[in-house]
């Protein structure tokens, strides 16, 4: 128990150490990486990634997954742009957040009440969100008439931050507090560890699960809406590269795919690492496909090292022939599924 406990803390430490190494590496090799303008761009990319990855982390801690964020992110961006021309940008962002909450509610209710695997549910809402996006735009690029508000959002604050990234980081901080210091956070971990046991302990599993999906939908919506407003454009479809980054951040940050283990602090560190890698590679002249290739390799590397590492940590030599290790072995067979509660 203590060994595995230590392991999940090490994962957080690993993510932050890698981020530090990447920072030193790019600062040393890539010209202009530490310039104020680039650090600002890095901060913008990091904040939105950290926000969406935090929402995904909450869902993953419950042993579930949310694929729909890949479509919610662009959808809410275009909703915000569309509504802002008509009712003002603040209303636009609020409506977009409402859309994110609605999709999160569908995800959560179907997963929790009907006990349908969240992957199946969220792939449905994902296709639905793509359809709604195309329906609203007619398949065309949406552009805002009034981009003043977008400029205000991205106005630098204290050099490397902006109103946009401050809002996003504030929500990340709120989720950090929620997971670490509230009952809701404890419940999220308890459900991820063992949903049946949580139910038997009178933990309100269904409401907590719905709340988790609402948080995830809200994070994707807020990120998408702010991004859309800031860029003053929106387009229907999916943002697979972004889902890849968010999932990589959570997995690299040490969130167990089986739920119940890992820390949001690790996710944030991994998000910082990924934002730096994208930023540094782009500065060095790599195109977006190459950045995505690198992201994919990183994710695969994490997946590959996960099983051996867990094995080494959870099976100490003196446990090899004890009953305890046998139990752990059989539970691992079940653990190879994700998203089935």
């Amino acid at each position, binding site marked *: 128990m203590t060994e595995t406990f230590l392991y999940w803390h090490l994962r957080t430490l690993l993510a932050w150490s890698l981020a530090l190494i990447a920072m030193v590496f790019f600062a040393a090799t890539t010209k202009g990486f530490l310039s104020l303008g680039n650090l600002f761009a890095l901060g913008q990319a990091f904040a939105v990634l950290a926000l969406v990855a935090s929402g995904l982390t909450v869902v993953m801690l419950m042993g579930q997954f949310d694929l729909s964020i890949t479509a919610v992110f662009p959808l809410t961006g275009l909703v915000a742009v569309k509504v802002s021309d008509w009712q003002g940008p603040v209303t636009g962002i609020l409506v977009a957040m409402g859309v994110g909450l609605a999709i999160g509610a569908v995800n959560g209710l179907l997963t929790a009440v009907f*006990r349908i695997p969240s992957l199946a549910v969220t792939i449905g*809402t994902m296709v639905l969100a*793509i359809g709604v996006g*195309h*329906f609203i735009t007619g398949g065309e690029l949406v552009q805002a008439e009034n981009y003043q508000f977008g400029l205000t959002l991205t106005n630098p604050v204290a050099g490397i931050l902006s109103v946009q990234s401050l809002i996003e980081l504030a929500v990340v901080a709120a989720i950090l507090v929620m997971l670490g210091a509230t009952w809701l956070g404890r419940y999220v971990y308890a459900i991820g560890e063992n949903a049946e046991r949580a139910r038997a302990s009178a933990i309100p599993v269904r409401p907590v699960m719905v709340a988790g999906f609402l948080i995830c939908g809200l994070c994707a919506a807020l990120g998408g809406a702010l991004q859309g407003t800031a860029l003053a454009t929106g387009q229907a479809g999916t943002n697979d590269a972004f889902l890849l980054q968010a999932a990589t951040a959570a997995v690299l940050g040490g969130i167990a795919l089986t739920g119940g283990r890992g820390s949001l602090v690790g996710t944030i560190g991994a998000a910082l690492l990924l934002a730096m890698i994208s930023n540094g590679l782009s500065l060095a002249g790599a195109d977006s*496909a190459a950045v995505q*290739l690198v992201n994919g390799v990183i994710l695969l590397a994490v*997946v590959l090292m996960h099983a051996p590492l867990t094995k080494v940590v959870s099976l100490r030599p003196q446990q090899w022939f004890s009953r305890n290790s046998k139990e752990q072995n059989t539970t691992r*067979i079940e653990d190879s599924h994700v998203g089935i509660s």
Partner: protein
Amino acid sequence: MTATAVTTAEPQLAWRSMIRDGAVVVGLITAAVFIVAALLVPNFATAANVRALLLSVALTGIAAVGLSLITIIGRIFALSIASMIALSTIVFAHALTWGPWVALLLTMAVGALLGSSQGYVVGFLKADPIITTIAFSAIVLGVGQQWTQGRTIVGQGGTGLLNANVFNVPFQVLVFVAVTVLVWTWHRRGVTGRRITLIGLNERAAVISGVNPAPYVLTSFVVFGALVGLAGALLAAQSGQGNVLLGGTFGFDVIIAVVVGGVAVTGGRGSPLGAAIGGLFVGLLGNVLALVGLAYETQLMVKGALVLVAVVLIGISDRLGSGRK
């Protein structure tokens, strides 16, 4: 005494298992929609439209038959389909100089190789299938992009039979039918196929009865990869071109076909035939909606709603079924 009990229970059981078999239900609904459309929708029941419908369904269906094995064995979905299709079209277009059949086999081999590497990671290293295939998707697409530098590869040489009609039926449709029958029979009659379902139904029971899941997961992924390669090659054969963008929404359509075809995401329930019929149903619905005059955007919304309904219905029937045991 016991004999009578068995005989009275049997027809009821067969009836219930038919209702619970997604393939039968979706098949009946598909037939009903087809008949209604033939009677009510003008221009539907023409030879040209039915041929176009079947052709539009064939490639999605081939890939869906492959994906259904992964879903049945309990590894949910592969999210790398679109990327693998895209890379397959590029491989096919490059290899077309050696003739269409060599190109087809080579593309299928590349697909099987990609499938086997994912299957190895998911099966033997016990990695999460969703995360693994997301990673592979990015890697495969990145490799395709680096290889072509975003250009369209125009194949040198004719595609021969691959894009032709046989007795007025497109060859690709015949391939779809052949693949469905072959994989379905293999899954239903073969030992490997039965074990794939056993592992999906109850992995622990499979392990205890001496079936190691890993090789079967690998096998499912290899068949899946080869069939996705086949679909990609046939797609490239339609235009004689390969491009990283050709995958498009393919991945989602294939997953929708599998879900709508009554293959349970929890594993063990459903068949490749169901996935094929699911693909046919989704294509049929799209065709009818287009003929009725609904825009492509509305069709997408209908598809999304359809997946949700299918998922909820299968989930409910699954719970009712297991509750009665």
